[in-house]
């Protein structure tokens, strides 16, 4: 059964303490619905990002903020198990309605781990 990453984007200056209650309730309701439908594998919100990049001298530079300079960043994501991309998109559509934000959907590819790798 294919799995999909459904990621929600938030504006960079988003302040979680200012999020309105209705949005919180809508997201909570959507989570419950996903669980009841047996599609939700995982869901989470994400804290602020720190980025690491390799310098030319080989050292690693750590900075605050996401790696890409954008106006939005990932605020959280779902991992859903769906029949196909169309179904994942239908759930993502509900994600847009609940979060009132932008949502991105990507299929997750699996390579079964060889037995040796798991030992």
């Amino acid at each position: 059964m294919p799995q999909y990453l459904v990621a929600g984007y938030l504006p960079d200056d988003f302040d979680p303490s200012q999020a309105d209650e209705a949005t919180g309730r809508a997201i909570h309701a959507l989570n419950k619905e996903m669980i009841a439908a047996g599609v939700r594998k995982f869901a989470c919100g994400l804290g602020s990002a720190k980025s690491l990049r390799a310098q030319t001298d080989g050292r690693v530079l750590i900075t605050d903020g996401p790696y890409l300079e954008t106006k939005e960043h990932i605020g959280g994501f779902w991992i859903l198990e769906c029949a196909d991309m169309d179904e994942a998109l239908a759930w993502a559509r509900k994600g847009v309605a609940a979060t009132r934000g932008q949502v991105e959907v990507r299929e997750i590819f699996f390579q079964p781990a060889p037995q040796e790798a798991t030992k």
Partner: protein
Amino acid sequence: MTDIHKTIEAVWKIESTRLIAAIARVTRDIGIAEELAQDALVTALEVWPEEGIPNNPAAWLMTAAKRRALDSLRRARMLVQKHEEVARELDHQQQQLADALEHAWDQVIADDVLRLIFIACHPVLAVEGRIALTLRLICGLTTAEIARAFLVPEKTLGQRISRAKKTLLEARVPFETPCGDELRRRVESVLSVVYLIFNEGYTATSGEEWMRGALCHEALRLGRILAQLLPGESEVQALLALMELNASRTAARRGHNGEAVLLPDQDRTLWDGAQIQQGMSALDQAHRLGGGAGNYALQAAIVACHMRARTAEETDWERIVLLYDALMQTTPSPIVALNRAVAVGMAQGPAAGLDAVDAIATLGADSVLAGYHLLHSVRGDLLTKMGRFSEAREEIHRAITMTQNLREQELLTERLEQIEKATWGL
């Protein structure tokens, strides 16, 4: 154009169950609820391609269903206009229905979906009717899809569904969650429907490949939904475990040319580790709930023994024999007895296995198995291992004439060739 239809189909698939459940909460009749929901879908198929998908498709569908319900009441009102009293009664009903449907969507709870599942799998229905209704009402499959999955004409399946609805109406089946002993009995019926759907997808040898995959997927999803809705029922967890564990081998069950690969010959690195873990934890949960001796729990425990072995040789056959012994206590059947005999043959040697097979005959079950090709192929295998080649050959020949399945005939013919080689000491 096709894209929007696929989108509508996907939206329908995730919203239809709750929609039907919400309407049924008011109408108390799932036949009417389903028709109203279908009408709403038809309206959506007309309107959405023109106006785009609404922001809240579920609420839109609910409103459309409500309009259809009021329309039909209004039509009834026109017919009785002359009889003032009846007309006033209908006006009242109309207002009540409108109000009730208005609130139904906000109130629809997980229990409504559970009630819908219990009704779709109601024991008053023929088993095939239960399967069709479940796939239609709970999984949101179309009549055409279900017909294709079960290789029956669409018309036949349509009739099957309307017959089932009629039966439910005539039997006045209440829209409620059963309780007490009745709950146990009804859960059993639901689980057997789910497992039949899974097996149809998992073991059927004909039919379209993708549709069979879809049946396994739907059964697994039903299993997960039930595990959420009935967290205290150990057999629900156990059936989920059984299905997850079996489904985890899907990638290893077919060779490069689409041929079946039997369990001992499978490449175990192709088994889906994450799904095995899900299955194992559902089985643990069944045990924690005290249901280790349940029918599905025992079957799942047997599969778990296979899944734990890193190679076929490492399989704990001793434990599998014990589990089959327990299964013979709870749900004895000739098939279980035959599987047990195979396990005995692996655990204690072919002679013990052959004794176990022949003991089935003394149980009086041989008549059931007489026409069953696996009985003879199992005997053939055990006799081969004991070096009694000519008897083995006879058994395998008999098995070949008894199965219609080409793939099984191929496998048995291969077996015959191996016996020939063994006979000549090759």
